[in-house]
């Protein structure tokens, strides 16, 4: 499997990472090297092997249906780069 420059650009869009044109070539090479290395796994027969779902045998803890959070608008907004009237502000979304 190989990762061409077009794929690198596409992945960049998916991951919301701006990639400049002069980075594409290098990234494509580096990522290809890593992908080739991943091919080691192809030799492993994993027929009928369940993917690891939980690292430790524990059952999922359930919380009670109680309101234990919220009412902390000031704290939630304290680190916001841009906020007004209790809202987070971001560049306008055009739908």
């Amino acid at each position, binding site marked *: 499997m190989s990762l061409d420059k077009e794929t690198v650009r*596409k992945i960049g*869009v*998916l991951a*919301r990472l701006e990639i400049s044109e002069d980075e594409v070539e290098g990234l494509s090479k580096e990522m290809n090297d890593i992908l080739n290395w991943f091919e080691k796994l192809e030799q492993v027969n994993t027929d009928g092997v369940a*993917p690891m*779902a*939980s690292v430790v045998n*524990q*059952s*999922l*803890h*359930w*919380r*009670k*249906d*109680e*309101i*234990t*959070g*919220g*009412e*902390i*608008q000031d*704290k*939630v*907004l304290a680190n916001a780069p*841009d906020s*007004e*009237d*209790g*809202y*987070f*502000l*971001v*560049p*306008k*979304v*055009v*739908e």
Partner: protein
Amino acid sequence: MSYYIQGETGTWEVVIGLEVHAQVTSNAKLFSGGATQFGAEPNTHVDFLDAGMPGMLPVINEECIRQAVRTGLGLKAKINLRSVFDRKNYFYADLPLGYQISQFKDPIVGEGEVVLDYKDKPSRVVGIERLHLEIDAGKSQHDQHPTKSFIDLNRAGVALMEIVSKPDMRSPEDAAAYLKKLRTILRYLGTCDGNMEEGSMRADVNVSVRPKGSDELRTRCEIKNVNSMRFVQQAIEFEAMRHVEVYESGGEIVQETRLFDSSKGETRSMRSKEEAHDYRYFPDPDLLPLELSEEFVEDLKSRLPELPDDKKDRFMTEYGLNAYDAGVLVAEKETATYFEEAVVERDPKLVANWVMGDLFGALKRLGREISDSPVSAKHLGELVGLISNDTISGKIAKDVFEIMLETGDAPEKIVEEKGLKQVTDTGAIEAIVDEIIAANPDKVEEIRGGKEKLLGWFVGQCMKASQGKANPGILNKILKDKILG
């Protein structure tokens, strides 16, 4: 009665499937302790997790699990004892984590069904494909500022059940009936309040068409977030017609997400959302698989309330109601409860007619819910009782009902105070009849001469003279006896 579109090249059938997002009734969110209540100040029902703060982790709300299982049981569906939460990855302003926690491959509920009843055609069974739990996103407002969007995360993290139907519906009417029935079931179960205006129930509609008689499934389009039953029907009508037109002009339908514009009654493409769609689902490593025991499910099953279909069947056998009436009465849990309270020791058919007729009319006029009815179920029952035991006539009962609406008084009290009791004393009625006969000898002759229609006029005159209180049966008999012998 079937719904077909007559095109230029032939007849087309519509194939519809619905994905309904129903907000789970719970105090707190699916994975955080933030409140779910609607209409709060922005970002006040937000816990650190809901805002996607670094290092915050999800812990599942047990009530949301119960609600999903209850709903599954109510849809006669398979409950999956092991389900998995996945991350659906995408970027959006109202998605603070950068992913939605959802269930992709292994949902909590599998296949089930919903039965749709119609007044004038056979029932239709719509299959349920699956039901899964997921978190809601926040809300963006785009009209507050020329260059900025305002983000409120109060809804972010609220538990939703996504209920996916099979493509088993064939008309806009089916889709509306399905939504209505689903809403009824959810409200019976108490798992979702079904309020479409507040967005606690939202529907995505999948539409495709095919030539009549074919069983192929053609490319479908998904119409997002249609938020009323009327809009669902309009959206389907428009979209199905669009498909037919595209096919008939030699074109192809592209699978895509479309938006319904309610002001124009049409759907339009949301290409922007389609761009580079790749959700990269994978099991959420912050959560372990959700495992349920048989006992847990059985316990919930044993405590499930009576469901609308069961209640309808019981109303038919226990009260001898027809299918349609029973269906109307069970459509809202509150109506059914009202009916059952009113019907104790009364004539069921008569009570049903009063509930569906006068009471529904009055509530609609007053803009009130049945749970908030000015006439209590007990009083309505008593009113029907007074009709049945001939204390008042059906006509007088309507007047009494109007007074009950205004005063909230018991019908007996009104009848007593206003002196509306029916006259059944034959002597008293005879006296009135004699008086009217004596005053109208010419008309008596006309009747005896064969113009029996005039008898009705005499009934009216006598009723008037008795101020409507004469028992109509007795009055009729005496009149006939006296005039025709």
